[in-house]
């Protein structure tokens, strides 16, 4: 059975379509929505996006594999983006990343049902380094001993990125 967008997603895409001269510029928003509704952007999900926007599959595939927020395999409910770029590194970000790895039992890039752990590039929170992003929530001035609390908080109140799509 071929996949479909939900009626709400179709409505959002139709509204956005009015803002551009063609359907192609909507592809990023459509991929965000597709990932929200289908978990990841595996081949049949990309085919659904391509058909819905009347774009070549190859084009949609090319776009989906270019941007780092799109994933082709299942991820956890929360995507933890731990910045390790210069400002964060200078204030101990690799120690924070290691604490997440140990306490989640995940290595960078891996997922459990609840969490995906990402080593992120600069998230523009440099004045409060080290910084960690999860959906709409920023954790700032993070130390390794705060990591357990962050994990517990996100287990209680998940922050899926799809909420924003």
């Amino acid at each position, binding site marked *: 059975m071929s996949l479909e967008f939900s009626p709400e997603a179709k409505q959002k895409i139709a509204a956005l379509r009015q803002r551009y001269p063609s359907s192609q510029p909507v592809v990023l928003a459509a991929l965000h929505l597709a990932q929200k509704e289908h978990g990841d952007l595996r081949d049949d999900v990309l085919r659904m996006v391509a058909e819905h926007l009347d774009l070549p599959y190859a084009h949609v595939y090319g776009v989906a594999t270019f941007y780092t927020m799109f994933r082709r395999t299942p991820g956890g409910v929360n995507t933890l983006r731990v910045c390790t770029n210069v400002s964060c590194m200078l204030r101990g970000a690799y120690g924070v990343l290691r604490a997440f790895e140990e306490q989640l039992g995940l290595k960078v*890039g891996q997922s459990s049902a609840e969490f995906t752990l990402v080593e992120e590039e600069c998230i523009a929170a440099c004045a409060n380094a080290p910084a960690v992003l999860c959906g709409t929530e920023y954790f700032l001035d993070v130390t390794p001993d705060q990591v357990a609390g962050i994990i517990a908080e996100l287990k209680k109140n998940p922050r899926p990125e799809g909420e924003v799509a």
Partner: protein
Amino acid sequence: MPADMSTKLVTRNFGNVKMREIATYEAAGGYRIARAALGRPPADLIAEVKASNLRGRGGAGFPTGVKWGFIPKDATDVHLVCNADEAEPGTCKDRELIYWDPHLLIEGMIISAHALRAVHNYIYIRGEMMREYLVLERAVREAYERGYLGDSAMGTGRPCHITVHRGAGAYICGEETALLNSLEGKRGWPRIKPPFPAIKGLFGNPTVVNNVETLMNVPFIVDKGGAWFAELGVGRSGGTRIVCVSGHVERPGVYELPMTITFRQLIDEVCGGVWKGRKVRGVIPGGSSMPPLDASELDVPVEFDALMTDERIKPVETAPGVPFDMGGGRQLRSMAGSGGIVVFDDQTDVVELTWRIMKFYAHESCGQCTPCREGTGWLEKICRRVAQGKGMPGDVELMSSIAVGIAGNTICALGDAAAWPMLGFLTKFRADFEAKVNRAQYGQVHANSQVALAASAEARARQASEAEGVA
């Protein structure tokens, strides 16, 4: 009157949680300036911005009025695009600006769109900025509900539309032509210029791409006059400067300051000095793409021209005594860039710091141009082995020659953004690199470094993914 420490324009509403609601913004006089500006001829507004000496706050520091002037006089279907793809390491101002004062951005765009006769306008916001996307979406919706945006913007009978367009994770989309491709629903690949966006930009139409902070300064300029804004600054740089100070200072933060403040004043007087009572080793002055300053070069102001021309800053070299040629014999000192200022103390492993910068550019290279795609990867690998104490004789020269091979040989500035700091760190801190290479020859390896941590994390991840059969 020149700006002083208390002059606040675009950051004046920081900390006011109500200001992102349109009613509060209006009660404080919001949208009054836009209403007045929409009654003025576009040419007047462009002249005002030209006179203001406003320079682009995204990184290049190009005069905004001149950029606007490139739009052909008879052009129809002009677009104004706001670049809110802030991702330059060390830079955290646009995210804050959007979060605290989204209506100031919208007001700036309404005025600028009128000046450019632009109808369909876009804000390209970085995909990771999910919280700020929601703030901006709501503010734009409110502006439509009030009739400030729409088919008859502010009752003028002329249309003005703003659409917020989310990215999805790619540093390169901050480059303006990559951003335009991403807006068109393509991979974020930079375009060959010419044609420049002012002639052939979004959807093939004349387009101006301006940074968030740049556009937020526009209401102040048209309200109080270009001359007033120019006088706030110094020389060819009008207005105030937002700096994002991070790294080893006691009080990191986003500060709006006079252009004339020096790096040393900034560290000691604004940021409470270097942390833990240590001494400063060096400073990245404008985001990680810019060559660093060493501790002897900090009495230079944060202003655009000073960083490019002040002779107290040693020119970047390709080898000791051999200046790097930017073309036509022009020397490279540094640049004010995006205002991202990263301070590092005297206990910093400078080679590791350089490695982390190279790792970033290797990760973010879009892959179109061979010198950048291959070169950034090699710089990361070689810099890593030097940082890990496994460097080989000739590695310092090799890194320099790779950087020279990238600089100026790519479609966009990402290649330079990797090559310049590489050459800059080698120029200013060459002894650190050489010492590590020399120690490596005698078998002394530093075990507790950040690189060792990072490397082991990646090695463990690789082992784990191999075990799971995931390539």
